[in-house]
């Protein structure tokens, strides 16, 4: 493409993006076509990638295609392997895309589609993609070091310790919240419970098939596993209608919670090949296929958004979770805009596969753009629902009332008309007994996705199959995160305990495996139990806690990145990471303050504890008060630790900039790539 033609194309793209964003922002009254969101996203991502990431690559990071990467210098055919950039892109995307970009935007839709959409677009282009890109590159330049190792080397020992605590805290809170989402989606749902229960023997069968029958044929076994999962979805309908078998799968939230806790323990202690690996393969297979299918469905059907751009709940009185649009929209949507967790993946497997430094731009920045697009699709799936339906599904009984009639009355009173009959009809259409009080985001997303799909294939007749396909898809995601997270947490704990008593650090010593698995499972299991027993549904308190933990980790990652940029002598460009860091610090610190000290009992943990203490003394009151105080303490500890790392980093920048400290980065020495001729040619 010639330069003038290129310029015209980019100007046209910018104009289309600006028009779409203006339409999204200004449009009021009539429902809006979802295509405006899609066009705004595609244009923003294209411009961000073409111009902003190129600027960062050239000016800030000075990517050097002649510099050998660890995949070349340390190539061992196992961890360090030079890999095609598209392959690394797919691998990285499969690792960063989880349930977060699906659930967060659905919950944030209570504010309307506008705040979430803007945050996803701006947050990704200027925050999330930048974080993933720079951390990936810095890890590549340090032989694939992890975030905690880089924090220790570049910021100091305190930085390393804080990063470790932040990582383990986020893992524990994340797993508790993820498990709660599954429980809320499966409670009193024999169809869903049966389907998900079946994924366990299917994964075990895949493990045995791979090891005993067709060694190494993973794709083949995943296709087989997927076919069996589809069969389980189909069979689930029969199970749900059978009065004898159906009751074994009609479980209460506490029973499901206990089963998931036991499952998490077993998954962490069993050999990787038997359960974790095949489930991971199956989940990835379903994930990539379903995301592609959803994207095609949205583009082909161009659904209409019924949710208004802004709802009355921007004032903080929302039923899904309490708190003003600032800061709570920005911690509710983490993955999809910016997620600290990604920095663990950008400094994990991915840097060991990169063939050339210049490819970090496409893999780090580009894969995060793809994940952001998934979040936009989740926003669309939630907002195609009638607002009354959305709030009926996502509002806890503690707020809207215990009976369908009471809930419908309260929600209609907010200006979002819905009737108990409508909801009963919808529940029947998707094969459920009720859709009221299905907090957690997953059921609302599943109804939205089923709504989109049922307009293309099968019509209303297949609505129930699509709904349960979507529930299976999300639960499979989440259980994979649970398996992998519990095991990673266990390894981290073993590494730390190994410093206290050496045998505890041995990852093959069964007493150590069992005790550390139990500790990690009990830690997230406690949060899960707390959520299950919470009369407000648990998501109200636990999702913000997860958001705060995740964004705290992003602050740690951005502190590391800014420190390295300053030490590289490129402080004039430090705004690239300093701006998202400042924004996230403002958001996370404000949200933490509100979650601890806000006088509104629906927002502040301590105010809620105080309200409970002043109320009637029920048998569970003492436990609920303890939980509130524990949540306040966890939030407080996290934010103090993050404050320490921000302070330590800022002092380090000041010392370097004033010349009181040597600006020395701890990179691996420069080695020219063996493929230099190829590069120059």
């Amino acid at each position, binding site marked *: 493409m010639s330069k003038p033609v290129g310029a015209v194309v980019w100007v046209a793209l910018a104009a289309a993006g600006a028009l779409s964003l203006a339409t999204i922002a200004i449009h009021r009254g009539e429902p809006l076509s979802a295509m405006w969101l899609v066009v705004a996203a595609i244009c923003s991502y294209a411009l961000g990638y073409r111009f902003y990431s190129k600027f960062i690559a050239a000016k800030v990071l000075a990517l050097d295609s002649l510099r050998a990467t660890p995949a070349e210098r340390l190539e061992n*055919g*196992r*961890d360090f*392997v030079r*890999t*095609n950039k*598209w*392959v*690394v*892109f*797919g*691998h990285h995307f*499969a*690792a*960063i*895309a*989880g*349930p*977060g970009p699906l659930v967060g935007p659905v919950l944030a839709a209570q504010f309307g589609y506008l705040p979430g959409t803007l945050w996803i677009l701006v947050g990704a282009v200027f925050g999330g993609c930048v974080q993933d890109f720079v951390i990936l590159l810095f890890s590549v330049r340090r032989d694939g070091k992890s975030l905690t190792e880089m924090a220790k080397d570049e910021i100091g020992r305190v930085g390393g310790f804080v990063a470790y605590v932040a990582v383990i805290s986020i893992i524990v809170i*994340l797993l508790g919240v*993820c498990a709660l989402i599954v429980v809320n989606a499966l409670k009193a749902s024999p169809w869903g419970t049966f389907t998900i229960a079946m994924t366990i023997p299917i994964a075990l069968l895949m493990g045995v098939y*791979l*090891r*005993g029958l067709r*060694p*190494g*044929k*993973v*794709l083949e076994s*995943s296709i087989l596993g997927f076919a069996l999962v589809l069969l389980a979805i189909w069979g689930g309908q029969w199970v749900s209608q059978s009065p004898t078998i159906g009751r074994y799968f009609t479980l209460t939230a506490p029973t499901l919670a206990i089963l998931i806790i036991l499952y998490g323990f077993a998954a962490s202690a069993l*050999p*990787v*090949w038997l359960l*974790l*690996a095949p489930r*991971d*393969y199956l989940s*990835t*297979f379903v994930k990539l296929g379903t995301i592609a299918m959803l994207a095609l469905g949205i583009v082909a059907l161009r659904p209409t958004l019924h949710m208004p751009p802004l709802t009355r709940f921007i004032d903080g009185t929302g039923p899904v979770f309490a708190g003003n649009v600032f800061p709570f929209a920005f911690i509710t949507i*983490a*993955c999809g805009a910016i*997620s600290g*967790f*990604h920095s*663990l*993946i950008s400094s*994990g*497997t991915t840097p060991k*596969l990169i063939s050339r430094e210049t490819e970090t731009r496409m893999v780090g920045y580009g894969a995060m753009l793809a994940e952001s697009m998934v979040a936009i699709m989740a926003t669309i799936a939630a907002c195609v629902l009638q607002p009354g339906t959305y709030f009926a599904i996502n509002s806890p009984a503690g707020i809207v009332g215990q009976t369908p009639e009471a809930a419908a009355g309260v929600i209609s009173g907010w200006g979002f008309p819905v009737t108990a009959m409508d909801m009963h009809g919808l529940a029947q259409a998707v094969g459920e007994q009720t859709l009221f009080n299905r907090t957690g985001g997953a059921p609302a997303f599943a109804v939205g996705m089923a709504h989109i799909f049922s307009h293309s294939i099968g019509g209303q007749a297949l609505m129930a199959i699509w709904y349960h396909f979507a529930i299976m898809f999300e639960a499979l995601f989440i259980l*994979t*995160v649970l398996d*992998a*997270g519990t*095991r*990673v947490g266990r*390894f981290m704990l073993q590494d730390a305990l190994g410093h206290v008593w050496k045998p505890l650090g041995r*990852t093959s010593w069964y007493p150590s495996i069992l005790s550390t698995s139990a500790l990690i499972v009990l830690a997230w299991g406690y949060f899960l139990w707390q959520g299950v027993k919470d009369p407000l549904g648990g998501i109200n308190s636990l999702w913000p806690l*997860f958001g705060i933990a*995740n964004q705290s980790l992003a602050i740690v990652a951005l502190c590391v990145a800014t420190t390295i940029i300053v030490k590289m002598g490129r402080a004039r460009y430090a705004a690239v990471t300093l701006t998202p860091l400042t924004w996230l610090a403002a958001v996370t610190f404000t949200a933490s303050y509100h979650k601890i000290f806000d006088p509104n009992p629906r927002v502040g943990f301590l105010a809620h504890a105080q309200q409970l203490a002043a109320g009637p003394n029920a048998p569970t009151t003492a436990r609920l008060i303890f939980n509130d105080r524990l949540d306040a303490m966890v939030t407080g500890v996290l934010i103090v630790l993050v404050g320490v790392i921000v302070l330590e980093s800022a002092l380090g920048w000041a010392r370097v900039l004033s010349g009181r400290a040597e600006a020395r980065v701890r990179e691996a020495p420069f080695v020219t790539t063996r493929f230099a001729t190829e590069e120059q040619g």
Partner: protein
Amino acid sequence: MTNADIFTNQVRRVLGIVRATLGEIFEESAYARFLDRHGLTSSREAYALFLRESEASRGRRVRCC
């Protein structure tokens, strides 16, 4: 080369990349490299060895939320 040939080559290239990506994600490529490295042919025993070798790194692999 005709336009049809160019198109066919492009499609082949894209399918090749998709296949390689799936191979990497599903660790079939890692298994192939393992067999190459150790001069083995695919068998139950070889796969068991591969699983044992990759167990530690596999278990530490983070999956995002």
